[in-house]
């Protein structure tokens, strides 16, 4: 599937990802240890001896350099340590589980982003200056203008409260997360809230790109050959129009990951985004460091994936 050059390129990028992860985790490690406050403090304020015992238990009494070596050794063994707030909670399995939850919601968001965005963009382009175009463009502007937390709150009200009242409790959005994998509504509604603003960006980009492509000579040639509009649009025009869209997929994935911090907290989804906010507020340094490292790896991998997608969409691109 991949040429030797492509495999070499992937290998180089993976090595860079490792360096990126180490660099990010090191910066965060040093940064959080300089912050005032401590996860181990509470209003009872135990005596200093007890506090020292606790620091010793978590190896926080070691010099920073030794703590860092321990941390790096742990990371290399896939062990990000233990939560400082929730005792006995190992961070690596915790983050892996939360990543799966976030992946489900984020996956739904990407499906919405691309599905709705491309659909609206193509419709607007092929029906330029008609009510379809105006509707699609207006929808895009609305999505583009509204922050995801506003959309999330409105959806929560609509499906969680209003729908419950309208149907007498027969139908409603069941917030939170059920079981290991959640239910469809628990994935789709937050996914929509997360993805819709980005879908609007994709829609605008797709429309502009399609409008440019469908006026190209090769499209006119395809029509002249007697191909159906469907074939011309999907097989010839859309494929080329998608290249700019793929270009912004990387930043969009990053936007979805960072947007999940807000969305997961609004909908009560136990994913990485919720963890991000909780662990920072609780000063759970071990989780914060692990989480940033995790995010760095995910974002770097997402960018690599997008780069590889170019070759699939545009065979002229080679690595």
């Amino acid at each position, binding site marked *: 599937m991949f040429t030797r050059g492509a495999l070499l390129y992937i290998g180089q990028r993976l090595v860079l990802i490792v360096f990126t992860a180490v660099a990010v985790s090191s910066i965060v490690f040093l940064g959080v240890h300089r912050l005032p*406050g401590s996860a181990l403090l509470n209003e009872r304020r135990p005596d200093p001896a007890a506090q020292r015992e606790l620091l010793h238990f978590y190896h926080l009494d070691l010099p920073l350099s030794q703590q860092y070596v321990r941390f790096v050794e742990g990371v290399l063994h896939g062990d990000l340590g233990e939560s400082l707030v929730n*005792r006995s*909670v190992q961070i690596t399995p915790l983050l892996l589980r939360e990543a799966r939850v976030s992946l489900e919601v984020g996956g739904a968001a990407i499906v919405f982003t691309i599905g709705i965005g491309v659909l609206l963009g193509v419709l607007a382009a092929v029906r330029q200056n008609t009510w379809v175009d105006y509707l699609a463009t207006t929808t895009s502007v609305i999505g583009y203008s509204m922050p995801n937390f506003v959309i999330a709150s409105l959806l929560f009200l609509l499906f969680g409260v209003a*729908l419950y009242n309208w149907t007498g409790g027969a*139908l409603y959005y069941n917030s*939170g997360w059920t079981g290991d994998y959640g239910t469809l509504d628990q994935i789709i509604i937050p996914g929509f809230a997360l993805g819709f603003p980005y879908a609007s960006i994709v829609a605008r980009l797709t429309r502009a790109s399609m409008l440019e492509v469908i006026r190209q000579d090769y499209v006119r040639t395809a029509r002249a050959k007697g191909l159906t509009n*469907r074939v011309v649009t999907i097989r010839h025009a859309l494929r080329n129009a998608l290249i700019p869209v793929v270009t912004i997929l990387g930043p969009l994935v990053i936007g979805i990951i960072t947007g999940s911090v807000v969305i997961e907290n609004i909908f*009560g989804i136990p994913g990485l985004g919720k963890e991000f906010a909780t662990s920072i507020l609780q000063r759970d340094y071990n989780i914060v460091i692990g989480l940033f490292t995790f995010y760095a790896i995910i974002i770097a991998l997402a960018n690599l994936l997008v780069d590889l997608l170019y070759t699939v969409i545009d065979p002229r691109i080679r690595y």
Partner: protein
Amino acid sequence: MSDLFVGKLRAVRPLAVLGTIGILVAACGGTSTANTGLASDQTLRFPIDGDIGTLDPAAVNAETDVEIYQNLFDGLLKFDDTLKVVPDIATDLPTISSDGLTYTFKLNPKAKFWNGDPVVAKDFIYSFSRAAAEGQDAYGGDFDHVVGYDEVSSTKDWAHNQKMMSGMTAPDDHTLVIKLTSPWGVFNTELALAAAAQVVDSKVVNADDANWWATPATAVGTGPYKMTARTPKQSLEFTAVDNWWGSPQPTVKKVKIDVIGDMAQGVAKYEQGGYDLIGYGGMGSDIPIDDVLRLQKDPKLSKELKFVNKVRTIWVQFNFVKAGSPFKGDLESGPAHDLRLAFSLAIDRDQMVSVACAGGVTCSAATGGLITKGLKGYLGDGADSSAKFDATQAKALLKSGDPTGAKTKNLTYFFDPNKAIYKATAENLQSQWQANLNLHVNIQPIDHHTFLQSLSHHEYIMSREGWQADYDHPQDWFDNLFVKAGGSNGSGYSDPKVEDLVAKADAEPSLDKAIPTYVEASKQMIADAAFAPLVYFKGEFLFKPYLQGSGSNNFNDFYWNEMKIGSH
């Protein structure tokens, strides 16, 4: 071409509608009834907004942990729903020697852990000694009057170097004798607290001292429930223990707890029927005020909304030790005393409650002293003379305490905004001091953990302070906060008169006899203007009408095994 797309859209539209409906899961539905009037599904569901920290008796500390944990473990004594100390695994209250130094307990021979291991007196010696050694950052200090405590509490790595407190002996399997170094009137109360004084199974704990409690298979206790599932930071599940040794036998068979983002989500889900109650697990003060006000106006839900006085007081703390603090010294009279009193008298607490607590819905004015309304040692409404609003006298005191205005120039009040009420009271204080003292005080929010750290280092001249009582005994308030050795004494306040009174009251075995002395200490602190009281907290709860036996007292949720889920 465009027609094609529009046509496709038309074709897809009904599917989309059906799909949308399809993905919305209907989670409602009442449970079937039986002749007993109880629901066939005895599963209790409620949310908490943060995961448990630990369920290990040696380490348990946070309110959420205690509220859950009290259903999984037992001690010698416990609090009943009216906060009276009653026997738990002990068959009766202890017999106390005439010198107040020896406590003898008889244990219930039926008591056993859910894994079948019997509970014997040696288990208590092991459990209390372990807590004394490993629980110094929690409630291990509750055993500091037991003979041998000092040696055990200073043991390093107790799990591998186990020492037992020499003052605890077991003449037989069902008799436990505890000797104290000096009379300690609060000892029974400390033993009743669902924290360090709970019994654990040494066989299980020794296998993995740090993590035994975290896994359902090894989280072995003596309580009516046991943990059967735990997904950290997502959910907890507990199941009633078959043939539990105590009473009443649990009717609620399962308890499912979701760890959610915030209580606004919990309230929404409660209204959908997804939860049976809101407020358990220490969440009684966490319902957003907007939701409380909305629920109050709802004819149906207002009947399900309950308010309970909780055990938290907040006040303005003055720094008594930091160099340059204008509030330092002059305990009963003098410029610093006048300044402290001026700041206190300049607060109209009724106005504060009206503004910061939605007209008194979520808190009440702290006019009865340090100890929260409803607890032993409360002085009575309006009994605290430093909590009376008197702007004229406040201005006069400010003038006498700081004639030039130099001492109070650029003062800053520090607070942690992790609770909405802290921010609301800070803003209200600033506005009232401006209006009533004609003095601008800066207010500075500091994140909670940094705030606590700075507070323990006496860094703030003036700040938010508060206390949530551990048990209904005045000792808990004074010893921690207002004596020199108090671990949570962030102000550095120390008055020899108060120290003597508290020491005398602490040694009195009879609480009834001790209370007048604690009251005297309280009054001395008021005379010193040791702090400026603000408000007492209230807890908000929602209970479905079909719940029986649910509720909360000032401290704790009612025990799960006392509850039943009626048909609905």
